[in-house]
């Protein structure tokens, strides 16, 4: 589904964010990428929808080499890739349902979206996705009336409404408290399994990674230093990825 072939990326300020990365992610996998901040986790993700372009190597998504795509094809590809942001990135003054419908924009003609005319089927889809994450009773509430955890779950519904093949979640729970973090991660894992989506999540909390990942990719200084199934992972593995003992603040804590 997603393949990195000898990918290196050097930013214009000389920082080597990725060094010869080779990974292959299969359809339907729930992959968590761990590593300290600055390890290259976000860069790896932004390569996938070409918000940044690698200086060397190829990124292949769903059979397409994305560095070669033209602008119009790139937009088509981006509709296939759903993104969940750390700060939710909802339009605060808009209702929850309208925010979720933003996920449909890539599938709606410009004219119809400008006058706010969406097919009933799309509205049904959006409402149904809100139901799936249990927030449908807030559909007509303004997004800024919701708590952080609720807003992040709305952004999950938005991504689902996009009907993507891939979900990228960059530190989705970094701004949330422990119980809410668990709920968001549970919802995310459940819906991506139900829809058979390939999901990549950046996390720096190792207990969350252990609990929800199918597979863990560890990064340090732009290199992939670990790649394995969750069964192979112990706390020892994380100490190897981080290159030092694990600190208590690198765990998010229990759901309760």
């Amino acid at each position, binding site marked *: 589904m997603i393949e990195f072939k000898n990918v290196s990326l050097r930013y214009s300020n000389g920082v080597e964010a990725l060094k010869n990365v080779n990974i292959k992610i299969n359809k339907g996998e729930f992959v968590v990428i761990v590593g300290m901040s600055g390890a290259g986790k976000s860069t790896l993700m932004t390569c996938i*929808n070409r*918000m940044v372009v690698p200086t060397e190597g190829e990124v292949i998504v769903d059979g397409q080499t994305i560095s070669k795509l033209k602008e119009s094809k790139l*937009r*088509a590809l*981006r*509709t296939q*890739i*759903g*993104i969940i*942001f750390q*700060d939710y*990135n*909802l*339009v*605060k*003054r*808009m209702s929850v349902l*309208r925010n979720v419908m*933003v*996920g449909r*924009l*890539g599938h709606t003609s*410009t004219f119809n*979206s*400008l006058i706010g005319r969406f097919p009933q089927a799309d509205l049904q889809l959006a409402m149904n996705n809100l139901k799936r994450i249990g927030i449908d009773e807030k559909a007509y509430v303004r997004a800024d009336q919701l708590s952080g955890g609720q807003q992040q779950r709305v*952004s999950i519904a*938005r991504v689902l409404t*996009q009907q993507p093949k891939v979900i990228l979640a960059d530190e989705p729970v970094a701004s949330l408290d422990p119980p809410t973090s668990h709920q968001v991660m549970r919802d995310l894992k459940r819906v991506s399994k139900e829809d058979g989506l390939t999901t990549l999540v950046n996390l720096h909390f190792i207990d969350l990674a252990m609990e929800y990942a199918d597979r863990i990719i560890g990064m340090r200084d732009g290199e992939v230093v670990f790649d394995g199934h969750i069964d192979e992972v112990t706390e020892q593995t994380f100490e190897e990825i981080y290159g030092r003992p694990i600190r208590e603040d690198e765990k998010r804590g229990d759901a309760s």
Partner: protein
Amino acid sequence: MKRKKTSSSKVRLFKPSFYIKLIGVSAGVLVLYYLAIRQTNASLARMLSAFPIFFRMLIEDFFPPDFGYFPTVVNQLIETFNIALISTTLAAVLAFPLLFFSSSTLNRHPLSYGGMRVVLTIVRSIPNIIMVVLMVAVVGLGSVSGILALMIYSAAILIKLTSESVESIDERPIQAIKAMGGNTPQVIRYGVLPQITPIYLSHILYVLEINLKASVVLGFVGAGGIGQLIRRQMSLFRYDRLGLIIFVLFLAISVIDYISQTVRSRLA
């Protein structure tokens, strides 16, 4: 626990160079004041001596106001309000599309952005009285010239005020819409408009307040409405009628300011 001594030298709140700057700037401002007073020949004694004359004029000439003149005043006041209303509405419609060309967040094309800015600055630098005089020369006396002049002027103000708000909106939702494959019109419709619509409406109301006052002044130079009435009655030395006009204006402007401010505080 004893407080740890960090350093033996005294800690100052400001750097020494700050005091030098403060003295320099204060001296500069004082020199400006001195020059201003010399140039304008302003003296406190002269200003104070004007007050008794003014006071006598108020009592002897303005009172009692000529209430029989009330229907005419209200009639002209409505015309003034309509000039303000129409010019503000036209300005709002005219400014709306231009708004997006004149904010750097959305228009990354340096030539059209820079061009927009230059045109706006030129338009705003022309006092609206001059604009009306020009318009009167073009379309003749009456309210149409006032409407045209106010429309151009207030469109420029609206663009200036609101494009600054566009530049300070939350860009994260825009990033999200782009990442999901939305195109520029969709980004504007779903990422920008929901954030700026209340601000824009509030600015429109504010411009309506300004235009109401401006259209009184503009009437004075021939743009119709109550301003024209003031001018006529002044040249006839009918201060009793002038008193009534000022009183009615005061009431009308207060009421509209109050309504506008109440609505605007709800919008924000």
